[in-house]
């Protein structure tokens, strides 16, 4: 029995860290397809960022905190990097250093205009951009530029309230 417990402990130690953060390189259609396939949450928050972008880097800890604040069944937080290929290692390192886990994405280089418009026709292209989607991936709230943690929480809580009131 003791050996089984030790084996289980070793197994979970090996599987719960290094394998828990994946960054897939996708175009916009691939992104939506992948999210739809994997989603188990009522709301999905996509934060679009870049390692080049200072406000994005300042904002990411707030977004990471949302993962701890909300149950995964309620909210899934996804990071979508717009870094160029030459910075792919920086993206992974930055997310790992900020304790980001789960499935995340990096945009394929090029076709920026199509990408921006397919995300949201009102988006100017300024980073960071955040969109909150319902479980069917319908965009229900969005903003561009860096916001404080309280702003994110208020937005999410107000959407949750609307949902609870009987949608």
């Amino acid at each position, binding site marked *: 029995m003791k050996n089984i417990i030790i084996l289980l402990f070793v197994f979970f130690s090996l599987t719960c860290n290094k394998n828990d953060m994946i960054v897939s390189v996708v175009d916009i259609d691939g992104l939506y397809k992948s999210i739809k396939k994997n989603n188990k949450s009522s709301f999905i928050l996509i934060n679009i960022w*870049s390692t*080049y*972008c*200072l*406000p994005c880097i300042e904002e990411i800890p707030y977004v990471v905190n949302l993962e701890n604040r909300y149950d995964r069944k309620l909210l899934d937080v996804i990071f979508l990097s*717009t870094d*160029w290929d030459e910075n792919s290692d920086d993206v992974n390192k930055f997310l790992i250093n900020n304790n980001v886990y789960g499935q995340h994405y990096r945009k394929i*280089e*090029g076709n*920026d*205009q199509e*990408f*921006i*418009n397919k995300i949201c026709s*009102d*988006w*100017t*292209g*300024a*980073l*960071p951009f955040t969109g909150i989607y319902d479980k069917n991936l319908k965009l*229900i*709230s*969005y*903003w*561009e*530029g*860096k916001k404080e943690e309280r702003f994110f929480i208020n937005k999410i809580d*107000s959407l949750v309230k*609307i949902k609870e*009131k*009987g*949608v």
Partner: protein
Amino acid sequence: MNRALYIIILFLCTLLSARELEIGEKIPGIDLLMKSIDGNDLTLKKLKKDNGLLVIFSCNTCPWVIRWQDRYNPLSELCQKNEIGFVAINSNARLHDSVDSFDEMIYHAAVNDYKFPYTLDKNSKLAKLFGAMKTPHVYLFNKNDILVYRGAIDDNAKDANKVNKKYLEDAIISSSKAEKIKVETTKALGCSIKF
């Protein structure tokens, strides 16, 4: 009913906060004074020429600016040739006492051999009037001060040799001939302006 109203208010707030100058609108803040790196006080009125004015919201540090700025001088020459004024404006007010300070602008312009006016937009006043959100972002006005093109310089920030669509260059040429611009608005990724 309350829920519907709440959602409408939520969306309106989001839309209003992102209000940007539209095609067909006049140059805003045309008399607003800006300090240029050559020491002169400039306004958009002083900068415009017979066939209009090109405004680029720019800065010293944004990686997209850094990649695109090799096209600034050729574009300013094209504007000069076509009697269109040209100005790059730094509206990063939050960084005006650090990496985007006036001294840093002078240094940045010297290192990159800027051959056009580069001005400081104190408190981001002009950027706010334009509804500009990012760098680099361009606004081309025709000879009647009307916005005729807004958006990206071209479709490839990383490499000028791999550009397929020269949006701005095409717009400058069309506007100077008083012809209709085929693509009036475009988008590209960029750094948010630090208000």
